[in-house]
């Protein structure tokens, strides 16, 4: 029932994007997202679309994986499109029915906004598809490192994330076991209305929480037994290292900023 859920959506590989440092990928995405919001005409949008297509090719992932990431947001995109078509006014009137009008600005905005959303989603899923959760956590820890000086518990947050990732399969297995145990005692999780079904989840959630707390306690003790004492003085097995790939990414970022800045109106 639950065994087929993949953790994150990382697809292992050895493409240019897979091997780039997670820090440069993260920084690039932040920059790219800003550029997507700065783009405001067909030239700038075309440049961004072309760049996204290029990046997808560079990742050497099959297109179906990447398009799958758009699935959960189709509705959102559709909704924004419809909303903009009917509400945003201005320019030539294309169509009129009673007090409803579809005007030039509306159509324009609808197209641009859906491209914006699509690009953002495609690009960020490209990150999670090509970066293992562990690398991602480590990249975040390093990037947020400076905030540690103003009291942000960066190391602790990163450790929490990585332990959470490590325990997802364990807890999945446990949930599966509890569901089976409750079903064996006659619990029914598949029929009834929404409220009923939600209520039926309580006998799954409570044992799961109880055991998660017990696990947390034991894990804390095991970590202490192995000399864990916070982030100070700790070394890491896999040190992140920038390579020529990251220099190329930096060059691409500069070119992209210049291009958008030049053609933007």
């Amino acid at each position, binding site marked *: 029932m639950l065994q087929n859920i993949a953790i994150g959506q990382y697809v292992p590989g050895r493409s240019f994007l897979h091997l780039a440092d997670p820090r440069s990928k993260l920084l690039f995405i932040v920059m790219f997202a800003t550029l997507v919001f700065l783009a405001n005409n067909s030239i700038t949008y075309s440049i961004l679309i072309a760049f996204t297509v290029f990046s997808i090719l560079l990742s050497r992932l099959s297109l179906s994986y990447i398009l799958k990431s758009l699935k959960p947001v189709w509705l959102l995109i559709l909704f924004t499109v419809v909303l903009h078509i009917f509400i945003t006014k201005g320019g030539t009137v294309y169509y009129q029915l009673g007090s409803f009008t579809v005007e030039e600005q509306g159509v324009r905005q609808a197209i641009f906004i859906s491209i914006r959303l699509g690009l953002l989603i495609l690009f960020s899923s490209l990150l999670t598809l090509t970066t293992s959760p*562990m690398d991602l956590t480590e990249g975040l820890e390093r990037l947020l490192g400076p905030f540690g000086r103003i009291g942000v518990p960066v190391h602790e947050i990163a450790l929490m994330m990585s332990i959470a990732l490590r325990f997802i399969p364990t807890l999945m297995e446990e949930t599966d076991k509890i569901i089976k145990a409750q079903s064996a005692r006659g619990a029914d999780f598949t029929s009834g209305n929404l409220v009923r079904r939600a209520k039926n989840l309580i006998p799954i959630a409570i044992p799961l929480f109880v055991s998660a707390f017990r696990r947390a306690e034991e894990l804390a003790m095991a970590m202490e037994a192995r000399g864990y004492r916070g982030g100070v003085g700790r070394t890491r097995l896999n040190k992140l290292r920038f390579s020529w790939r990251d220099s190329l990414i930096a060059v691409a970022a500069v070119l992209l900023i210049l291009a958008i800045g030049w053609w933007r109106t």
Partner: protein
Amino acid sequence: MNEENLLTFRNVAFSYDGEEGQRVEVLKGVDLTIAKGSFVSVLGHNGSGKSTLAKLMNALLLPESGTILVSGADTRNGEMIWEIRRHVGMVFQNPDNQIVGATVEDDVAFGLENMGVDPQEMRKRIDEALHSVGMENYTLAQPYRLSGGQKQRVAIAGIMAMRPSVIILDEATAMLDPQGRQEVMHLAKKLNREEGITIVNITHFPEEAVDSDRVIVMNRGEVLMDGQPGEVFSQVERLQEAGLDVPFTVRVRHELVAKGYDLPFGLHQEELVEHLCRLLLTK
């Protein structure tokens, strides 16, 4: 510093507040020493204080009164606590709840990262440790895909990488299937023999204690018996009074002797089989 005795307990007492507000005495004045390089089994049923004993050995708990010395260092000494924990490695009961890393090598690295070991040295030690527990082909495997016995071996590798003097198995085989239990015991014996690691195996399976150098039986917070497996297991009645089982071979022989058969004492199944055959032939 006493080189012979790795662990020394001097009149150690420990208690905690029970659920109804009363004091629960877990250990009442325990005195014992554990020699370097030995393989010691600690037997006792639930609530005998054997697990508390383990947690006192690496300063996860501190004694209420009395002293515990690890290679001469007092576990109360806050400055020595990390050194003590490096020396005294501990494998816990539930294999899932002691693995921190998302891959086998990440997990073995955890203790070394805590110690601040240089990444290059770390790589070397991880390879050595995984080799010594026979898990070198699983470096990048995800722990949840391993069997219980394999997970415990990874946990042992994580300790071995820290170059400890003692490994405490705190009911490390309790949740494993017979095969996993055998894997772990086999490994513990190998590390004891070949690498000179002192092993303290805390267990409630008397069979696991048969081959150790010494058996300590705990009952109600006190050391009930302490000696070689032969001495301890020959006192079947006393063990059973403490709610403990004896190895199967010893029990069979005990029952037969009670029925009037003349059988010499032995700890291993092969001995018993041989004696039984001989008895059958001479009849």
